[in-house]
């Protein structure tokens, strides 16, 4: 294929042409298929994208059309973005684990004409909702398994669309040039993508990001961490999430690095180990999960190994982070650390697929300081960043060498951050979104005329210039005695214990703080196995007296910690219970990105909250649940409520007493 010599760098399709020209033979996307890593070079990607793009055009896709993309991380689905953008259309990635109604809402709101789905599962959802989506004309699927006997009048195979595109190229020589011209006509100010936020409250909103938003933000980020075409990353987070869109598409195209797609969601850890990415991103729960997994397995290791492991981890805890930060450390300590690297840290990192990582990020939630410190001490350059969909991810980030577990770093280049009088964090940046799609009211509420965007998070700058996030601004409330109540802050403290998976606290305009706790089935289940405690279900294990005892000790520790912090001491947990069911996105209790929908949970479990404040010690509840196949059912349980001691601090003694 002839790659045209000149192309701008204003849109992603233009960048794709540049990459095909400059790095034509370098791998751009890899996917593990039939047990073997298949790779596509930049030149091949450009060819695939062009075929697909022309095929879509022959189906009638034109400038301004919206194209939904539903599925797990597959190179073929990433190419849809570029193929659609090349035609002047707007791709709309949708969460693939959403139920049919949720997908229908997004597709309906976005007035989608085309949908590209990964497989039968997604196609079925779209067909089921086809009556509600009169604008949806064509569905294109990638994996033909199980779809052979479907009516193919408006259903197309990905390959056959590409073949149609290829046929156009073969018959008319002008087609190729016209396509390149159309790509080069793309402008920076055009809308690149509409990302629907999962939304902890209400309906999802479509965030419109322009090419300029994404490209400027991402180029700054690439410079910040010295990312170039030699990097490797693994794409495994939902494609509809802004993080994945930036890491696996926008950054990949601007820096020219390679994105690796695992075989499936269950094989991510195996595939990560095989690829050993150099740049990676994971929400805190992934790091927590890996650490829990390692600790559980170390329990089964031989005594000698366990001793070695404990000894060197303890040593890493003392010096590892200082070495990573480039601080002054004695030669002896460095040598001893090197021995530890050889015996423990190296193999450990290899096992987790971190051997080549230069920069790893975590964001989305607060990460437990212990966990954060653990990874840094064994030599993983784990950092935190703060961002949101509306900002094209990057607002603040931790520069190398200046890492603090409780902050999210300093503002990125070109980003201005200020704290509003209400305590809310606000920013102004080139990455700031254009607006919400078909929702001007929401846009006006979020973005001021001067370009400042409300994040909705309460935070403060510390003396060292780093930003610290406390909680969602609207969630921060007050107890009846006037002390500050930041639910997320307390919940995070609880969640830092491996046994606790999720916690929800209540206390705004109440007399004291109460908490729902979800146990972590992996950690607690393993503990139960070791102690010969038989259980048949989550519900049974959650109600076990020994489990309650353990959780109680964790809550007690949290109260102790809170009493040390003058601002938070009044909000110690007075009563708690272990919930009889796991919070689940299918029941609407969590968002698709696993964040708690606080108000929804409060409504759903209102009887339990009443029981908290009525002073009852147990409560019988019946809860409706949705099974994975969409059927409804109920679970019944009698939930025990426990009382806690609160601690007094000298500074807050008055409030301490009031809370007693």
């Amino acid at each position, binding site marked *: 294929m002839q790659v045209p010599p000149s192309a701008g760098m204003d849109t992603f399709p233009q960048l794709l042409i540049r990459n095909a020209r400059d790095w034509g033979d370098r791998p751009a996307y890899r996917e593990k298929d*039939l047990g073997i890593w298949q790779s596509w070079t930049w030149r091949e990607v450009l060819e695939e994208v062009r075929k697909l793009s022309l095929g879509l055009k022959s189906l009638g896709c034109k400038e301004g059309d919206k194209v939904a993309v539903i599925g797990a991380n597959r190179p073929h689905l990433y190419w849809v973005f570029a193929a659609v953008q090349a035609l002047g259309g707007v791709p709309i990635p949708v969460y693939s684990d959403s139920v049919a109604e949720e997908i229908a809402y997004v597709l309906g709101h976005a007035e989608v004409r085309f949908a590209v789905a990964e497989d039968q599962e997604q196609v079925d959802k779209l*067909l089921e909702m086809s009556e509600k989506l009169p604008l949806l004309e064509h569905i294109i699927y990638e994996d033909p*398994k*199980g779809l*052979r006997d479907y009516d193919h009048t*408006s259903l197309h195979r990905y390959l056959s669309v590409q073949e149609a595109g290829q046929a156009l190229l073969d018959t008319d020589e002008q087609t190729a040039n016209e396509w390149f011209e159309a790509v080069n006509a793309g402008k920076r100010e055009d809308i690149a993508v509409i990302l629907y936020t999962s939304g902890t409250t209400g309906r999802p909103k479509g965030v419109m990001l322009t090419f300029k938003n994404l490209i400027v933000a991402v180029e700054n980020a690439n410079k910040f961490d010295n990312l170039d075409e030699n990097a490797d990353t693994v794409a495994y987070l939902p494609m509809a999430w802004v993080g994945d869109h930036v890491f696996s598409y926008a950054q990949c195209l601007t820096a020219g690095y390679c994105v690796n797609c695992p075989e*499936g969601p269950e*094989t991510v850890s*195996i595939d990560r180990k095989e690829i050993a990415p150099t740049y990676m991103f994971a929400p805190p729960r992934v790091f927590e999960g890996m650490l829990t997994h390692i600790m559980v397995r170390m329990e089964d290791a031989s005594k000698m190994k366990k001793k070695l492991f404990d000894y060197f981890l303890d040593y890493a805890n003392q010096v590892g982070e200082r070495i990573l930060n480039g601080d002054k450390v004695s030669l002896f300590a460095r040598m001893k650390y090197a021995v530890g690297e050889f015996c423990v840290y190296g193999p450990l990192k290899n096992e987790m697929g971190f051997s080549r990582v230069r920069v790893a990020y975590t964001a989305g939630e607060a990460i437990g300081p212990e966990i954060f410190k653990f990874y840094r001490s064994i030599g993983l350059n784990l950092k935190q960043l703060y961002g949101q969909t509306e900002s094209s991810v990057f607002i603040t980030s931790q520069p190398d060498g200046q890492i603090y577990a409780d902050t999210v770093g300093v503002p990125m280049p070109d980003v201005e951050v200020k704290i509003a009088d209400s305590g809310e964090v606000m920013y102004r940046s080139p990455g700031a979104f254009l607006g919400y799609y078909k929702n001007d009211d929401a846009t006006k509420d979020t973005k001021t005329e001067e370009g400042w965007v409300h994040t909705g998070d309460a935070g403060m700058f510390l003396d060292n210039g780093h930003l610290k996030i406390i909680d969602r601004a609207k969630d921060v409330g007050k107890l009846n005695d006037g002390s500050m109540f930041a639910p997320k802050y307390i919940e995070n403290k609880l969640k830092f214990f491996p046994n606790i998976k999720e916690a929800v606290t209540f206390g705004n305009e109440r007399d004291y703080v109460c908490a729902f706790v979800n146990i972590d089935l992996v950690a607690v289940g393993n503990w139960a196995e070791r102690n010969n405690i038989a259980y048949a279900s989550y519900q049974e294990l959650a109600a076990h007296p020994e489990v309650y005892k353990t959780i109680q000790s964790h809550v007690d520790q949290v109260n102790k910690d809170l009493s040390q912090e003058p601002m938070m001491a009044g909000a110690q947990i007075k009563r708690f219970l272990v919930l009889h069911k796991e919070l689940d996105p299918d029941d609407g209790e969590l968002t698709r990105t696993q964040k708690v929908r606080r108000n929804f949970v409060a409504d759903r479990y209102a009887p339990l909250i009443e029981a908290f404040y009525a002073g009852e010690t147990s409560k019988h509840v019946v809860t409706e649940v949705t099974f994975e*196949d969409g059927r409804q059912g109920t679970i019944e349980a009698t939930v025990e409520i426990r009382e806690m001691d609160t601690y007094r601090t000298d500074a807050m003694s008055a409030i301490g007493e009031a809370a007693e």
Partner: protein
Amino acid sequence: MTVMDPTLEEVKRRAEEREVLLDLENVSLSFGGVKAITNISFNIKKGEIRAIIGPNGAGKTSMLNVINGFYQPQEGVITFNGEKRSSMKPHLAVSQGIARTFQNVALFKGMSTLDNIMAGRATRMKRNMFWQMLYWGPAQREEIEHRKKVEEIIDFLEIQHIRRTPVGTLPYGLQKRVELARALAMEPELLLLDEPMAGMNLEEKEDMSRFILDVNDQLGTTIALIEHDMGVVMDLSDRVVVLDYGRKIADGVPEEVQSNQEVIDAYLGLSH
């Protein structure tokens, strides 16, 4: 775009049109004085899903064992693919295109999923021990070809994540899936499934049902299955044969069988 449920007549007509793959005529099997199967005749047609049901001890598993040559019936004629068959060993049944899974999972517990499925290809490997000892050359090429086929099956049944896991450590539902994979590796014409859903939870059953339908639909494999979950049987199968105390008491499409009084009596029991 929805698929309409065909009428009863339509279903019957379709069943009539199909070619007979396996035909059993007046088959009887006894162990000493115990009669396991008495004078049973039925057939399995190409491309269908045929369920064999019946209460405990009705002779269902014996029936499967007769079909794949493990037991020799004392009386009766079995015709497979138009060929009358005399005495036969199970490995011959395999080479003729009959594969099966077992009621109690019968995998090599210490071996990985991949190796277990590769074992299913053993009868299809042509190179002798000499070549295999050489490692390089034709034997290696052959192994690569077989591995490709195995990987396709792994992809088909969505078990990539347990490729390297010893099957003994897998949950039951996944072991059943690996067993199905091993049977599929033989590329059978007729697949015998002995209680593929026993001991599974709802979600695993749904997955398994989907795989059985996919195997039937995509690979064109004829399937005979024994199953106790009536919901599954009625949803999946094209035709059902019902056994009780070694005798055939009903044979037909699910709707017919369901309303058959003798079947209802056999399942609910009769006061004597």
